[in-house]
């Protein structure tokens, strides 16, 4: 498959670009923050995204979706990164739907996916338990009972945890890892939302002797760890696509500013030291573009997943979007430090996305392990 967007994909990108720039530019995020939104996103906008078909991209046609691929989803996420638009796209439309597609039973898919596609149902993956992302260290336990399982544990930093209808929860069953679908309304589930640094919300979620049945296994009871890793890899690549948008937009705004801002009687972009930094960053972002597109292609082409490429993307994009947003602040100078100016939001989002599903160091380590050293 060629590493170029085809015509349909280019059209999708244009329409996503137009939609987000008109309906949800960075000022949209700012408004949500300033009105102390308790959801952290706009349900009206989400409904519109649903109508536009974005929530359906990965939902198979049999469940009322479009059955498109990850390349299309990546395009939307990249464009969302450019406008920093908060929405459940990553948590629900990408990660949640992927989880059901990969492992859900026919019954689970048919009851949840149509609702997701229509924009009426939100999912959240609950796997972290401590301050660091370590998906194979699970203290949350599922204990066999008469009618099923009793789940007890604590999950932290749950993306969209405060708005999810159902959680996808990793828990230990004996020495095995299993994934459960646990509705937020079940008895024993307590959700504590908190605000993170870019005005998004996340949640700590307590599961206190939550009773679930066999039907709440996500798919089969066995092999949960492997499936969790594959779901996470999809999330990592999605986060990378979004970081690409963040980095690109921050970079382009910075280059524009270098052309406009004058000091010492000339545009500061004429200073060679800044030119060289911009040129290096340009190259780094070009590398990232190739990487994200390749990773998305691979998701579409290899159902088995490509863990190495996922870690590569997450680490490299984490590095480059950090670099791009940090340089954006530095090169904007004082004005970049002000809340009134938008560029700081990019730095904040970059930090959130870098941290999500494992940061640069986590994935450098994982990449090296996957390559055998």
């Amino acid at each position: 498959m060629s590493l170029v967007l085809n015509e349909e994909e280019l059209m999708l990108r244009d329409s996503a670009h137009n939609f987000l720039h008109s309906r949800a530019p960075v000022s949209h995020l700012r408004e949500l923050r300033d009105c102390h939104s308790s959801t952290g996103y706009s349900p009206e906008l989400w409904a519109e995204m649903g109508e536009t078909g974005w929530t359906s991209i990965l939902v198979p046609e049999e469940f009322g979706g479009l059955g498109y691929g990850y390349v299309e989803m990546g395009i939307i996420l990249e464009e969302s990164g450019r406008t920093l638009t908060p929405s459940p796209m990553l948590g629900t439309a990408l990660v949640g739907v992927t989880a059901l597609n990969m492992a859900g039973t026919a019954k689970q898919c048919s009851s949840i996916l149509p609702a997701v596609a229509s924009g009426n149902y939100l999912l959240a993956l609950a796997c972290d338990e401590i301050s660091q992302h370590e998906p194979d260290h699970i203290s949350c336990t599922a204990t066999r009972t008469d009618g099923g399982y009793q789940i007890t544990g604590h999950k932290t930093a749950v993306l969209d945890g405060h708005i999810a209808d159902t959680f996808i929860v990793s828990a230990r069953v004996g020495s095995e890892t299993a994934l459960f679908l646990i509705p937020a309304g079940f008895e024993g589930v307590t959700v504590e939302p908190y605000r993170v640094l870019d005005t998004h919300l996340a949640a700590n979620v307590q599961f206190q002797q939550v009773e679930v049945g066999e039907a709440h296994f996500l798919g089969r009871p066995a092999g949960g760890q492997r499936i969790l890793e594959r779901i996470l890899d999809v999330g990592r690549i999605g986060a990378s696509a979004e970081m690409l948008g963040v980095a690109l937009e921050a970079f382009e705004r910075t280059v524009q500013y270098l052309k406009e801002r004058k000091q010492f009687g000339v545009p500061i972009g004429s200073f060679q030291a800044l030119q060289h930094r911009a040129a290096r960053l340009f190259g780094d972002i070009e590398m990232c573009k190739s990487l994200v597109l390749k990773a998305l292609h691979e998701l579409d082409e290899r159902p088995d997943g490509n863990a190495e490429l996922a870690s590569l993307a997450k680490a490299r994009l984490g590095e480059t979007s950090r670099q791009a947003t940090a340089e954006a602040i530095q090169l904007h100078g004082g004005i970049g430090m002000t809340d009134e100016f938008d560029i700081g939001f990019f730095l904040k989002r970059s930090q959130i996305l870098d941290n999500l599903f494992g940061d640069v160091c986590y994935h450098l380590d994982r990449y090296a392990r996957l390559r055998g050293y």
Partner: protein
Amino acid sequence: MTNLDSFRQEVRDWLEVNCPVSMRRPYESEADLFWGRHNGGFQSEDQKIWFEHMVARDWTAPAWPKTYGGGGLDNEQVKILREELGRIQARPPLESFGISMLGPALLKFGSEDLKRQHLPAIVRGEVRWVQGYSEPNAGSDLASLQMRAEDRGDHFLVNGSKVWTSYGELGDWMFCLVRTDFEARKHEGISFVVFDMSLPGVTTRPIKLISGASPFTETFIEDVRVEKDQVVGEINKGWNVAKYLLTHEREMIAQAGLSNAGNTSLGETATEVFGLSNGVLRNTMLRSDIARFEMDERCLDLTIERVHDEVNAGVSLGASSSMFKFYGTELNKRRFELLMAIHGNDALLWQGKESKGGYLPRTWLRSRGNSIEGGTSEIQLNIIAKRILDLPG
């Protein structure tokens, strides 16, 4: 016993009696310090006592001449006093841009009248001073500032605006760069003036930062009258005063970046979070970054020590403040990048008691400004290249 030894003993005894125990603890933020009037309030009785004892002893500005209310101590004595204050972790009795910035400029450039008018009040914490340098279109290119001071015979009439005034809304008086010659080349038409901020026509507006805090203001000056005797140094020669003060400011900022030196090391913090495996930090990739950081931090400390010793030995490295400003601020940014990585999910909390109101991410964001304020890193590198390395162009 030498004179210095007996001086040390004297200091030690005096502090034992006069520094309240509650003032012998590191402060957590600048807000915990007494900054002198604007409102003049103390946070505690102990803070007041400590301040008043130090004022009475003339030690709020120990190196300044006695004539102006200073302690009149020589370099060696000042060093001993600092060491003894450090030994008991005494808080500064008075934190003040008057002491750290305006004072040195007045002592070097000010008229006798100006010194007598302002220095004693600074020492006694009666006036809170703020700085007016940058303007919206004069940042790195500070000398292109446009605030107009028109000559009206016995006074100047000042109009314009300043930006990045630290704690501008709390200021009693401002020291400020203004343009007094509109035809001259840009470095040659600038004067350094001081004025009372309670005059009509002076207003401030807070600048909210990406951290959510507003430690700076914009300051607007409309038809404010500044007497000619309130010019520090010669008229149109204010750039010399500014350069002198910028050097001071860089040193302060570089030092600020090091104020964490006594805290828990990053290695220890990371060990608490990740634990060890075979004696080695479990996050081996982060370990490499932390080790490099700790090395660089130690190198900077040693270099500050060396340059300090060199200055005492009469060897002076020109423009070293630019090097310290650059390294100190870049290191502080790295410190907070690493802390964010170490604390992972927890580092993202923006509000709430558990996170001390999002202390870490807000401080991380704030640290980004370190390499911008007080002359950007780029400006410091320019200065090193031109003044120390003597590179052309």
